[in-house]
């Protein structure tokens, strides 16, 4: 045989062997950056396969940000509309914003009561996603938070509120950088935090109900006009990673980032280890990622088992907190017991649990969220 044939035969044999062993495949679709796919491929998938011989976990990344979740929505929606008897996604990991729509469009299974970890997550976010009730349909995978990252060599006294930040940016033009609203969620989050600080009724923005009058109010327009003014003193960065890159190269001294991304870059040596975080008041948004099971998942029982494993205190401690520096999805007290003090502390050095409790906000409810983005676009279109 020629080498190519031997190789081909080898591949074929390997493929046969793997199908012989793995009878069932669990398809997990996940939105988010590459690290989400890595989490399932490198950690959770192998663990699940070991506990359930004969299964194979296949992870499918659909891309970062809400775009990734939108793709999952469209995939399920298309299968629902074509009346497919069994859908090809068994477990999906989605962002908060699309989850409400997934539930109201009846694309998800009410599976939570069927798993033994159901009662471990009691935060608001496990009952409502941006104002839409989702109780029973979701288990939070982890919570993510945005905060301001800064270079302590340049910024000795980091601002602790939006007001101080505005002052600082005025005194240090172009030293604060963020990625606008089209380059990823850390910039969006900064803008939402801005509206909570200066816009009308932060509570209503976060909890609803939607009132179109509010978006035309004086306070709303005032906050937007101020933001436009503020934008003159900032540097725009290309994306979530772009902010960290520019911070690292010393091109900016401060900028909003995702806390988990910040820690994982630090752990990988991609970020100057002296960089620090600050959660500014009145607060900045964070969001959970949810595990959901589609209404007609082909392997729904296996899917429930998978989510139960993924939300068990052991996995949340080892995988979510220790390996990926995310805040746990289930209640912290269940996780803390499974971890050594040092690991737990590392997660809360710059942003304390107290900060999280008082300044960790949720994103605005869907219609306000869109209205804020569109007002922002309108502002920047008319300059």
């Amino acid at each position, binding site marked *: 045989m020629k080498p190519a044939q031997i190789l081909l035969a080898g591949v074929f044999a390997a493929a046969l062997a793997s199908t012989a062993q793995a009878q069932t495949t669990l398809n997990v679709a996940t939105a988010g950056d590459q690290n989400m796919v890595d989490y399932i491929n490198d950690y959770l998938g192998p663990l699940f396969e070991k506990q359930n011989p004969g299964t194979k976990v296949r992870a499918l990344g659909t891309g970062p940000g809400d775009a990734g979740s939108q793709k999952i929505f469209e995939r399920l929606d298309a299968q629902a509309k074509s009346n497919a008897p069994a859908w090809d996604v068994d477990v999906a990991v989605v962002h908060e914003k699309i989850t409400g729509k997934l539930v109201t469009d009846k694309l998800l299974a009410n599976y939570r009561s069927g798993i033994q970890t159901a009662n471990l997550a009691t935060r608001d976010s496990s009952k409502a996603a941006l104002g839409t009730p989702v109780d029973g349909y979701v288990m939070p995978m982890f919570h993510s938070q945005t905060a301001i990252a800064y270079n302590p060599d340049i910024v000795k006294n980091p601002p602790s509120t939006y007001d101080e930040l505005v002052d600082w940016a005025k005194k240090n033009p172009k030293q604060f950088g963020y990625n606008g609203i089209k380059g990823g969620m850390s910039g969006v989050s900064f803008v939402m935090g801005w509206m909570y600080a200066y816009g009308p009724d932060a509570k209503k923005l976060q909890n609803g109900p939607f009132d179109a009058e509010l978006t035309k109010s004086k306070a709303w327009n005032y906050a937007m006009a101020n933001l436009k003014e503020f934008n003159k003193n900032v540097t725009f960065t290309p*994306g979530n990673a772009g902010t960290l890159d520019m911070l690292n190269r010393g091109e900016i001294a401060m900028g909003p980032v995702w806390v988990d991304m910040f820690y994982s870059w630090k752990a990988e040596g991609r970020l100057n280890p002296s960089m620090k975080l600050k959660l500014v008041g009145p607060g900045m948004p964070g969001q959970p990622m949810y595990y959901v099971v589609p209404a007609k998942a082909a392997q729904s029982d296996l899917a429930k088992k998978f989510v139960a494993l993924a939300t068990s205190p052991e996995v949340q401690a080892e995988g979510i907190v220790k390996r990926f520096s995310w805040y746990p999805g289930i209640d912290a007290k269940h996780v803390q017991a499974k971890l050594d003090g040092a690991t737990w502390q590392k997660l809360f050095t710059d942003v304390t649990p107290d900060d999280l409790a008082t300044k960790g906000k949720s994103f605005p409810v869907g219609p306000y969220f869109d209205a804020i983005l*569109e007002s922002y676009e*309108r502002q920047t*279109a008319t300059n």
Partner: protein
Amino acid sequence: MNQRALGPILVAPALAMVVLFFVYPLAYSLISAFWSPEGWGWANFIKAYELYRNDIVFTVLIIALSTALVGVFSIAIGGYLVLGENPRSVAILKWLYRWPLFIPFVVAGQVMRTFLAKNGMLNNTLVGLELIEPVSAVSLLDWRGIVITFVWKQTPFVALLVAGAMASLDRSMIEAARNLGASRLRILLEIIVPQVRASLTVGLTLSFVTMMSVLSVPLMINAQTPTTITANMAFRINSYGDYGVANALGVISILLTSGVAWLYLRQASKDKSRAIA
């Protein structure tokens, strides 16, 4: 089976592919550009105009500028390949200039993103060579970055077409001009370029259309507003799930590229009629 019936049958699969994967999606997106939750009408276009008129102008300007620069550089490269007197530099240029052709836009964007940053490789090199002061280093990650990337990526493509056309010209005319004492620049501009105008226009038209459709480069390089139409289409879909305005922007893009295509066709038919006359 008779021959006449065979023809349509043989064409049918290809035709079905074109209808299914090109005509249908195109028609669908054209039609849905006029549909919004309020019903049929111009609502999507009005919104596209209100929010993105600067971006549309911006897109046209930077792509027109890029196209012009691509034209200049590809004529320069083609000209040197034909008229260059140092065989070694001609050989090196011939070998080098095609490289960007094999690099996808997204990779070019990624490379430029670190290359053009304020403290990126370009500025660091210039500072290291003491050509500029560190304080005067500026980030080129804005419209200039897009233009640089587009020109870098598209020049080889047009140069390939133009150089090919130039190489196949009758050299006797070039020799004659040279004997009469014309400079190389004059030969290039007055003898060679007019003769390869058709290839140049094809190359530039295709480049314009290609650049209109690139999403990765503006997303990776341009953090500012305004941004390109493609970036806004992606944003409409990803952030709002709003296909209506995205399709309206798509229709605007199609109109812009059709405008260029029309100019090109008019030029081509003029050339043809002149050739016949």
